[in-house]
């Protein structure tokens, strides 16, 4: 029972290796390598499901009666080329990240992002502070004006009486 | 006659695969990059060629025979070129061969590598 399933085990092992590389390494290029390993494990999964005992390649010939399943071949054929195109896009993203941030370590990129985020929020805070300070100054001025007006009224009332 | 053909092709295939294995052992056991390239370049080309010749002898179809001839020609062309390119790239970028303490050869190698670096930089 178990021996019949060994191809799925290999697929799961490769998949887990790829997943581990993506999660546990900080270097962006290594993450991309992990993704490639993951992709290939999925291809092997489909192609091993397509194999039929005693079948041959799915090209019609006169003396062959049993063929392997051609449908997964079709899906994986396009998937391989699309995989390389998306890997190329990921690699170009990494190249640009290296140019902008100066490093491809996840920690350093994250800390640079946090720094710039802190700087931005600090600027916002200081602008808010300035607005608040101005507002309180205006309030103080207005209250002092009101107080002077009241004092003048009392004095005039006092003069009247 | 059939028997002779099958024996001949079996012999070619066997010698070819034996040479490929020898090339693999050479990669593992030789001490230096250049000696390894030499081992691989010679044995792999001849090994692949003999395997192809063995297949050509028992090929049933003229079309298969013609395709195998093309593959043999291309292998004979590409194999030595690849080892040449690798060795040249290593030499230009400064990898020096490991020599015995023989001062003549060391001076010659240093002169040659200096010339290569100058012509590539200027």
């Amino acid at each position, binding site marked *: 029972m178990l021996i019949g399933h060994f191809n799925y085990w290999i697929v799961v092992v490769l*998949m887990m290796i790829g997943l581990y590389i993506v999660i546990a390494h900080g270097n962006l*290029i290594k993450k991309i390598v992990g993704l*490639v390993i993951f992709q290939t494990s999925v291809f092997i999964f489909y*192609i091993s*499901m397509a194999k039929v*005992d005693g079948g041959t390649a799915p090209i*019609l*010939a006169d003396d062959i009666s049993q063929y392997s399943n051609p449908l997964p071949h079709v899906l994986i054929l*396009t998937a391989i080329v699309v995989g390389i195109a998306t890997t190329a896009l990921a690699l170009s993203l990494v190249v640009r990240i290296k140019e902008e941030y100066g490093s491809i370590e996840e920690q350093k990129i994250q800390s640079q992002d946090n720094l710039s985020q802190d700087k931005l929020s600090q600027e916002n805070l200081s602008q808010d502070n300035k607005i608040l300070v101005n507002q309180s100054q205006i309030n103080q001025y207005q209250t002092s004006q009101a107080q002077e007006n009241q004092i003048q009224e009392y004095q005039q009332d006092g003069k009247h009486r | 006659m059939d028997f002779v053909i099958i024996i001949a092709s079996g012999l070619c295939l066997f010698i070819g695969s034996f040479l490929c294995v020898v090339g693999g052992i050479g990669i593992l056991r030789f001490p230096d990059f250049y000696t390894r390239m030499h081992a691989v370049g010679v044995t792999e080309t001849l090994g692949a060629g003999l395997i192809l010749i063995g297949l050509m002898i028992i090929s049933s179809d003229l079309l298969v025979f013609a395709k195998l001839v093309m593959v043999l020609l291309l292998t004979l062309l590409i194999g030595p070129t690849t080892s040449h390119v690798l060795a040249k790239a290593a030499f230009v970028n400064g990898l020096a061969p490991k020599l015995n303490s023989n001062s003549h050869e060391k001076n010659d190698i240093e002169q040659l590598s200096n010339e290569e670096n100058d012509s*590539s930089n200027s």
Partner: protein
Amino acid sequence: MLLGIYGLLSAIFFVAMDAVDVAFTEAAVGAGISSLLMLVAITMTGRNENTTRHKPISALFIVIITGGLLLYGTFDMPYFGAVEASINSHVVPRYINDSMQEIGIPNIVTSVLASYRAFDTFGEVVVIFTAGIGVLALLSVGRRPKDDDKIASINDSMSEQYLVVRIVTKMLIPFIMLFALYVQFHGDFGPGGGFQAGVIFAAAIILYAMLFGLSTANKVINQTFIELMAALGVLLYGCVGIVSLLNGGNFFDFNVLSNDPIAGQHLGIILIELGVGCTVASVMILIFFNFAGRKELQNNNSNKNEESC
């Protein structure tokens, strides 16, 4: 480097699984283009890595749990190579039995890819085209300054060093292109088709660009022309579908493209594979040219910084 070995091993595995088309593609793409792109990217981003300070125990834990769950999930799947597995019994017998009468080409994979499932292939081609546009958007260099004299002098001084390789390459490149054309048009009868042919053709052009310099390759094949060809491939593919709509059938229904349904299928398949080959080749060449051009830009900037300091 190991990616090349990995790709070749998977190609051998695919041959053992009777998947010859897939093995062809994996050998061309995985062992060729993939390791090349990795090398170029590593050239631009550095070879060293910070060692992690913490042991990733939690990642290992997650991976082991997920692996265990997946293994548990595979217990119900059919055995390896079972003839009566459910994936072999619904749509596939129709493809295998009726492909010769309905479409008339021996390679079942090509007939499924290009005729029965042409719409999926259209989507894949558009995805490849989009990836090419993405790389263009991220890495394109713009108008390169015309310093022809400097480049010509570099080429002359290098030509002695690379003499052997240049001559061998000049002999080889016509054969590679011829092989790409053979694979493209022979995809009906043996393993092959548009995807593999596009990758092999791109490999020939990339070989030329690597050995003779990017600017010489630009003079031979203009980057604008390649961008045009990429778009033309997708356009050709879509237009075949629209023409079949205009002739009264469904989208991508090739039976109506000509008087005889079988001839219509043949015509449709040839045109579609041509479109696929054009787009795949152009996108691969574009990706390589942009990576290499970016590297040249980085080199030029660092040289200028050194000169100014």
